[in-house]
């Protein structure tokens, strides 16, 4: 591995989807990697970005901050005293050097038993009373066999006053996230960092909150500590299953960004303005999706949607065939917006067999007919113009080939514009066509991502050779870029490819990104 820290910066913590008002006028024609946020390819042209994080309590940032603190303590040997007081995290060495009680030793053995070893990543959700709420793998019986372990883990967490974060046993990591009234446990045999695993557990937490609200969760457990939450989550396990699957595969969840349907900006603008015109008093967000790709998003002025909430909506729509029959109307909590309350979402496809799904989010639970009416008005406007035809055409090629970029050794890439919170990526080439290969490549990207966003030693760029591919990752204040080359490529070639690729993205940005997001 050939890693190099050019300049350590902790830009991850600041890398939110916040609007950036500066330097927008100077959109250079041929960008260089030194670009500042707001002028990179794919950055929006108006001061208001369509996705925004900063105006809300950012629980992830808070947890990241904590994790970072732990990590700092963990890494500096002299902080041993504080380490004992503040964190329960033990490194592999520490555990092997017997600085851990015999009690936790036996747990360690359980965790590494055959049943646990067979899957790459387990996720458990428990109540604070130790009642199982969710397990990624296994049925009731499988769950009962691991019950003892989970109970022990939970009480261990409690005994340590909730400060244990992770246990590293050989080849296996157990990560804890306590989010009262829930405890989330991840058991992973991947090489992902604690931070990445915690981020994934956060997602699972938000998934559960989005179904019930935190207020309701708290209410339930205050009244009945022993409540079996599976009753309320029954029939929704598939949402969590699918989200975990996405976490392994979807670059958007890794990059904290969403991707768009490639569409000529003239057509997209018409779609956006048609959606903008179909407004209603309590309508907060109008979202048009094509499968997992955003076509456009129109929001109420001053109301912002967080990418996590958007991914939860994507997951709900993508996991349910029920919206295909008629119009769906459901309470939904957008936890990054507000953990206490429900929005009400009108979810329907534009046409029965279409991939185009419209989501209208209202604050009023009696707004069904108003939302239905908004949809009709949107459809009428849209079908009067040629844009609908253009949109349907664009659906036929929702992705593009990396060959279009014209860099021979380049196989694949991920490019995220930080200020817009949007990313673009070509389809997987032939060599990565199997599911296993795609997940392997995603795993490599995740590694690179961990290095670029290391809590204490973040890297600006990272080049890595292997027998199967060469990888380059590069982060600036404006963008994040991950490139995958054939193993024949050289480092010099990779570096020169960056400029070429950025030029190409700049040329195509009208089509690949939403440059002029609208509000009502």
């Amino acid at each position: 591995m050939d890693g190099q820290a050019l300049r350590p910066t902790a830009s991850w913590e600041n890398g939110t989807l916040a609007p950036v008002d500066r330097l927008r006028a100077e959109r250079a024609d041929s960008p260089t990697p030194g670009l500042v946020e707001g002028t990179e390819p794919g950055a929006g042209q108006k001061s208001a970005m369509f996705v925004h994080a900063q105006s809300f309590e950012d629980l992830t940032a808070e947890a990241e901050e904590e994790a970072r603190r732990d990590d700092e303590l963990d890494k500096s040997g002299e902080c041993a005293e504080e380490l004992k007081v503040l964190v329960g995290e033990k490194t592999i060495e520490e555990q092997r050097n017997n600085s851990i009680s015999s009690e936790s030793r036996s747990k360690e053995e359980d965790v590494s038993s055959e049943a646990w070893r067979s899957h790459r990543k387990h996720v458990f959700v428990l109540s604070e009373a130790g009642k199982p709420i969710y397990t990624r793998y296994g049925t009731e019986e499988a769950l009962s066999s691991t019950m003892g372990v989970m109970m022990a883990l939970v009480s261990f967490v409690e005994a340590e006053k909730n400060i244990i974060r992770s246990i590293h046993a050989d080849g296996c990591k157990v990560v804890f996230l306590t989010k009262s009234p829930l405890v989330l446990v991840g058991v992973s045999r991947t090489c992902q960092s604690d931070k990445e695993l915690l981020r994934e557990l956060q997602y699972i937490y938000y998934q559960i909150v989005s179904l019930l609200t935190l207020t309701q969760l708290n209410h339930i457990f205050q009244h009945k500590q022993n409540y079996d939450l599976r009753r309320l989550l029954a029939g929704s396990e598939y949402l969590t299953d699918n989200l975990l699957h996405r976490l392994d595969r979807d670059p958007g969840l890794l990059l904290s960004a969403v991707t768009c349907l490639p569409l000529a900006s003239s057509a997209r603008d018409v779609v956006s303005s048609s959606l903008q015109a179909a407004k209603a008093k309590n309508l907060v967000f109008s979202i048009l999706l094509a499968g997992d790709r955003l076509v456009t998003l129109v929001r109420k002025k001053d109301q912002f949607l967080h990418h996590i909430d958007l991914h939860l909506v994507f997951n709900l729509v993508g996991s349910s065939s029920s919206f295909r029959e008629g119009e769906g109307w459901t309470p939904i909590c957008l936890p990054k917006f507000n953990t206490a309350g429900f929005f009400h979402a009108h979810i329907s496809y534009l046409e029965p067999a279409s991939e185009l799904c419209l989501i209208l989010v209202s604050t009023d639970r009696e707004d069904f007919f108003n939302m239905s009416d908004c949809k009709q008005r949107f459809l009428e406007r849209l079908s009067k113009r040629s844009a609908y035809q253009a949109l349907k055409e664009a659906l036929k090629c929702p992705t593009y080939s990396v060959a279009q970029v014209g860099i021979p050794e380049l196989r694949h890439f991920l490019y995220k514009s930080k200020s817009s919170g949007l990313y673009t990526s070509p389809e997987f080439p032939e060599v990565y066509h199997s599911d296993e290969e795609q997940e392997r490549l995603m795993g490599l990207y995740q590694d690179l991502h961990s290095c670029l966003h290391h809590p204490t030693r973040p890297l600006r760029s990272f080049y890595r050779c292997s027998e199967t591919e060469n990888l380059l990752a590069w982060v600036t204040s404006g963008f994040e870029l991950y490139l995958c080359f054939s193993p024949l490529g050289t480092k010099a070639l990779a570096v020169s490819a960056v400029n070429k690729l950025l030029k190409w993205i700049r040329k195509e940005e009208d089509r690949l990104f939403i440059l002029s997001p609208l509000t009502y």
Partner: protein
Amino acid sequence: NISFHGGESPKGTLRVKMVLLGSSGVGKSSLALRFGKDEFRSTTPTVGCAYLTRVVHLSDVTLRFEIWDTAGQEKYHSVTPLYYRGAHAALLVYDISKRETFIRAQVWLKELEKQYTPGSTVMWLVGNKGDLAQDRQVSVQEGQALANDRDLSFTETSALAGDQVSELLIYKKAVLGLIESPDLTKETFGNKGPKFKDGPHIYH
């Protein structure tokens, strides 16, 4: 004769608000699909509620069914009153191969009876999955007895087998019941149909 058409409701159409209630997995959405498209295919559980409209032309009147296919999952129960309030027809569905869904249907019935003045709603008790005779846990007699006791109409169906007659029967009888019902007049319903009233505020 009854025929099914989509599209605009012509002048003089009666709007009929119909709600499907019952435990998760009893086949409410499958029945709705069978009504509307005479199809059967596996779907995921309903999220919140699905709204469908079906137009039925009778010889002397056209009916526009506005069907609220509710989610049976417990987490959505607190919003269900939004949908059954003001319904002209309610189908209380259970799965003949799962006794607990029959018991659950009786709980729904109690709930509904609190809300309704007799005669304003045509209520049906529907035992679905009739094709699963080998797994039957609720006999026809039991279903019929409950229906007689509470003054409901009763039928067994199978959304899977698509025994069209019984599905159409639901329509026909529901429709006839409605036409005979003095409450159903054109004036009763505005252009937008019944608006939601306030339900219990369990969701904050």
